[in-house]
């Protein structure tokens, strides 16, 4: 039996003798491995930024919106008919044990003016609890208080984007802005929250007490109307019980008979984000599989070259057999050669893949994440490709008849 070191030396020498051919053969694997790495890096980057957004939005969130009812046989979309009230929100807070905090919302887009600057932004009428619900905080100044809500005071909190656009370098706290001509005192500036999962700038907002919004700025169709209610469950496990509790409570409050459908919809935002994350994962797998097709093509390239190589070296195989090489020795020699070729391609491919992923990150501003296992996986896969596609040519070589092979010119 031939030792591995000698076989390795023979294989390395053959690869070095046919430099150009070896490089071209490896190229298929290089492209395959690097594209698998890039695709996985992009897919996983998307997945991770999704997870980050989820953390930013606030965790364990439920959103109650009105509507999604059948009225007279016509199904209406969610939010098409307003049914939620401020007292619904207060009751959820009071009566549902799985709920940590509740923030009702009544919002609209308005023009905001300070001095000679003006800015159009979303006005959110809500309650101080929004800070708990959304895991948000005040950068400087103060949040509005429960008194502000009960007194419908004209105070507001500015998002960072709004503050920058209206005040520039000035300190907005204590200044008065006009929203639809109505003066509002700025009591604080919100912390920056960045983009939402949907790509919206969450800092482009103004918060005012919900009662102020209802009575003075946005208006209501009926007393106490709110657009939607955000609910934070006490913890991850309580999200689903909270959902049930709210459903039961609201059905009771809205006096819905057992045969009537809900006149509200409860959306589990965490679940929605999970779904989005899941689809990003599927995307990553899909991208990876498409890329691995090129790895497969690279493998076919190796097989092709190895078959040519076996034919070309028929005489050499004959000589080796005549002086004592067994079929297995010949098989191992050619198998090792194709394995070496593909691992060479794999190594270069890993390096190239990392570089290209970094390039994509820098120049296309895509979130990219290279997992160590993706490197290992693609490198291992290249080895597997080498053995798989090298086996047939090696097997063919080992089957040669020494007399025929020696006669081959």
């Amino acid at each position, binding site marked *: *039996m*031939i*030792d591995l*070191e*000698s076989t390795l030396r023979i294989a390395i*020498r053959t690869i070095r*003798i046919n430099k150009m051919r070896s490089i071209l053969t490896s190229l298929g694997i290089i492209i395959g491995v690097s594209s698998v790495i890039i695709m996985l890096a992009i897919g996983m980057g998307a997945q991770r930024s999704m997870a980050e957004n989820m953390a930013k939005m606030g965790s364990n969130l439920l959103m109650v919106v009105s509507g999604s009812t059948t009225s007279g046989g016509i199904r209406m979309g969610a939010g098409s008919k307003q049914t939620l009230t401020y007292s619904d929100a207060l009751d959820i807070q009071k009566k549902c044990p799985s709920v940590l905090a509740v923030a009702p919302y009544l919002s609209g887009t308005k023009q905001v003016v300070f001095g000679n600057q003006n800015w159009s932004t979303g006005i959110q009428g809500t309650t101080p609890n929004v800070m708990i619900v959304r895991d948000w905080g005040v950068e400087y100044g103060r949040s509005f208080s429960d008194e502000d809500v009960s007194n419908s005071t004209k105070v507001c909190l500015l998002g960072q984007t709004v503050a920058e656009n209206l005040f520039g370098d000035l300190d907005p706290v204590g200044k008065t802005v006009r929203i639809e001509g109505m003066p509002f005192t700025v009591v604080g500036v919100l912390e920056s929250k960045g983009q939402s999962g949907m790509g919206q700038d969450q800092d482009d907002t103004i918060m005012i007490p919900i009662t102020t919004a209802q009575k003075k700025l946005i208006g209501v169709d009926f007393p106490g109307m709110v657009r939607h209610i955000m609910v934070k469950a006490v913890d991850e496990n309580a999200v689903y019980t909270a959902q049930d509790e709210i459903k039961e409570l609201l059905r009771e409050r809205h006096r819905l008979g057992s045969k009537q459908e809900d006149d509200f919809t409860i959306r589990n935002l965490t679940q929605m984000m999970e779904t989005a994350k899941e689809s990003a994962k599927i995307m990553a797998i899909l991208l990876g599989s498409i890329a691995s097709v090129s790895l497969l093509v690279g493998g076919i390239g190796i097989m092709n070259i190895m078959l040519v190589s076996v034919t070309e070296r028929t*005489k*050499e195989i*004959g*000589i*080796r*057999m*005549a*002086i*004592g*090489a*067994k*079929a*297995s*020795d010949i098989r191992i020699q050619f198998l090792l050669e194709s394995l070496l070729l593909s691992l060479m391609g794999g190594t270069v491919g890993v390096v190239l893949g990392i570089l290209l992923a970094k390039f994509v990150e820098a120049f296309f501003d895509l979130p990219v994440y290279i997992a160590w296992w993706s490197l290992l996986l693609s490198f291992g896969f290249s080895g597997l490709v080498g053995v798989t596609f090298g086996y047939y040519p090696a097997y063919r070589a080992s089957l040669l008849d*020494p*007399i025929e092979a*020696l006669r081959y010119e």
Partner: protein
Amino acid sequence: MTSLIKTENIVKTYNTGDSLFYALNGVSLSVEYGEFVAIMGSSGSGKSTFMNLIGCLDVPTSGQYFLDGIDVSKLSKDKLADIRNLKLGFVFQGFNLISRTSALENVEMPMIYKGIEPKERIERAKEALKIVGLEKKMYNLPNQLSGGQQQRVAIARAIVNDAPVILADEPTGNLDTKTSYEVMDFFVRLNEEQHKTIMLVTHEQDIADYAKRVVHFRDGHIIKDEVNKK
């Protein structure tokens, strides 16, 4: 003492479409240790088929072949490879060195398949090259050597594993007369100094004259087996 090579009634047939072709039709031959045998015959006489069988590259259709006391006519391919490696050294007409591989590495090759350590391998390969007078050319590639030098590398490769038998199939066929005689002198020396048994296939009388015994083949039979009187 048993013979080194002993064939008994060897038959080798080939299927040519619907009829059987008898390449060898009952060949019995014994060769003792240390003999120098030339096998002569025109093409188609069966001498090459016989040499392939003697060289364990092929097995007979029927009949028996003992090499160094071992019945090799029914061995598996892997066992035959071992026998070729340990008992036989080949020298071919076309030199059959592996191209783009140095003389030294070519000579090393039989020892790789024998499983000898690299260090010992290189030492013995250098020694073998010294015997054929090519120690200064050991790092040359085959295409940097003359025909005679290439054939000497092949001879070094044939003797490096200490095989008792050297099979030479038309070893001078590709060489000019002067070089042919030089190469033949090596065979004579190997036979006389190292006591190697040499089986030589040729169709040239002057080359056969170097041997001590000449066996003539025709149509798959031995027609003449005589001691060379020269």
